[in-house]
């Protein structure tokens, strides 16, 4: 027996998410329990009061999203967590957070759908909902972890990106990662590079909450700090008050979308294994990427030149990276626990220049390494 290292924890993905939120400075959580995300709320209900934060169990997911937005406007780093049906309920208020530019983190631990579907089984069916679940043209950031350690790192990153770009960020986990227990070496807090929102430098009478400035990201004042301003889901001008002026609406909505587009290189992250000389490229994300990695290693052991491209950022979509890395390969395989939501984007990114083979499963069981391996060795 070894003496245990106190920084090494045996954590479930959901526990790592909750602990990382605290490390990132989250001091407010509102939620409504739903499998398989409930452990996040459970841990934070106990831990938040210990650090001077607040936990509220709301009457439903809609209210939980609203409370999260309110807390963030008050200056707190705020989070909510849910799964499938609850994620659907949150969509309208997610749109409000996008429009009003309220930083917050929404965790969706994906389970089988549609509807109440498979509460205790993994799926990856909300790739498109996380992008377009709320109405209207809008930008969004979506990150997808494949391990418990990465759940920790990405939760911190989700808060950092939310604060940096004044936007909601979605952490798209799944039941397998959320309920998986594995070893995590918790990084020291000073290594996390915590980002906090930019505060106004002007006096309250000069403050414009939706100012058009060089960065495209307006400074954000906390409610209660003496900066009185208007927050609305209606189209608004620099002051935050609703407007029907088409020029002002156009310029604000263009800025809203541009503020994520222009920083996409800072936001998009991918990981590659054995892609340098690959002639078959496997693309995957989340828990399925674990099976994909094993399948690629097994293929390499048999002398097959397979490589893996793992999407860590789902939205903005890593289209340029996919186009570049897949350029020399003859076949692409996309493995995902849905019916081809990422595959479709991959076909778009590669302009259908080569075959995109789909490995899909939607019965609650994970895609196995062998199922991906069989697609690698299949004759074209």
């Amino acid at each position, binding site marked *: 027996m*070894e003496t245990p290292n106190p920084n090494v924890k*045996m954590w479930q993905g959901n526990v790592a998410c909750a602990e990382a939120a605290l490390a990132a400075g989250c001091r407010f959580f509102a939620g409504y329990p739903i499998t398989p995300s409930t452990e996040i709320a459970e841990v934070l209900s106990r831990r938040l009061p210990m650090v001077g934060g607040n936990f509220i169990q709301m009457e439903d997911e809609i209210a939980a999203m609203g409370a999260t937005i309110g807390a963030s406007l008050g200056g707190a780093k705020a989070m909510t967590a849910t799964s499938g049906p609850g994620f659907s309920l949150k969509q309208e208020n997610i749109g409000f957070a996008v429009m009003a530019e309220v930083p917050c983190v929404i965790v969706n631990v994906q389970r089988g759908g549609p509807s109440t579907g498979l509460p*205790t089984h993994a799926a990856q069916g909300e790739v498109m909902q996380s992008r377009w679940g709320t109405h209207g043209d809008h930008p969004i950031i979506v990150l997808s972890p494949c391990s418990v350690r990465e759940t920790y790192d990405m939760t911190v990153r989700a808060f950092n990106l939310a604060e940096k770009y004044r936007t909601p960020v979605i952490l798209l986990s799944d039941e397998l990662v959320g309920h998986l227990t*594995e070893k995590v070496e918790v990084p020291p807090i000073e290594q996390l590079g915590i980002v906090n929102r930019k505060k106004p430098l002007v006096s309250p009478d000069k403050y414009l909450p939706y100012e058009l400035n060089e960065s495209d990201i307006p400074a954000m004042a906390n409610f209660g700090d003496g900066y009185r301003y208007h927050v609305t889901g209606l189209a608004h001008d620099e002051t935050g008050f609703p407007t029907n002026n088409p020029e002002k609406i156009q310029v604000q909505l263009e800025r809203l979308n541009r503020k994520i587009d222009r920083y996409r290189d800072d936001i998009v992250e991918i990981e590659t294994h054995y892609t340098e000389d690959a002639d078959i490229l496997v693309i995957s994300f989340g828990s399925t990427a674990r099976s994909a990695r*094993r399948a690629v290693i097994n293929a390499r052991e048999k002398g097959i030149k397979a490589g893996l491209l793992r999407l860590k950022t789902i939205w903005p979509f890593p289209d340029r990276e996919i186009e570049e890395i897949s350029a020399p390969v003859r076949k692409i395989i996309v493995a995902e626990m849905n019916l081809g939501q990422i595959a479709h984007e991959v076909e778009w990114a590669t302009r259908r220049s080569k075959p995109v083979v789909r490995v899909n499963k939607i019965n609650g069981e994970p895609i*196995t390494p062998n199922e991906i391996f069989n697609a690698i060795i299949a004759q074209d």
Partner: protein
Amino acid sequence: MAFRYEVRLSGSGGQGLILVGKVLAEAAAIYDGLNATQSQSYGPEARGGASRSEVIISDGDIDYPKAENIDILLALTQEACDKYIVDLKEGGVLLIDSQMVTKIPEGNFQVVAIPIIQSAVERLGKFLVSNIIALGIITKLSGIVSEDSVKHAIRSRVPKGTEEINITAFYTGIELAQKWLDQNGPLNT
């Protein structure tokens, strides 16, 4: 080449098999310096239904965290045994509760039948600790983790106030496994 050892704990929802999986994984990963994952599969019901918890132990990276080629399968109910036997590897160990599982599936594996639940009731007065007795048996039969590591992991994971009865249950399991080995000879592992 890294080794990969797969354990599947199966029974009925509410028997505490997810906890046992977490304890076993923690013993391997935190106290024995190995890598380990624990995952589970269960239905939407709070009690009942076939339930399984899986532990993968390795000295290398663990990509796929689900069991596919099981070294040791625990079955505490007939339903779980019938449903989950498929992934037991050739020559693997099927550990069953001898009173709950009466129809042993056919196949090329080694069977260890022990009255786990009855022992919990008769020796500790609580059927609830059957899961930890099973953990003791698995620890002894597999040799994959050290007894001391499991003991520490039990103390860190079981509810406060139940540590002593669970440690007693753990050693009861080790004793039952030793008795089985004395009577039947060593397993091929």
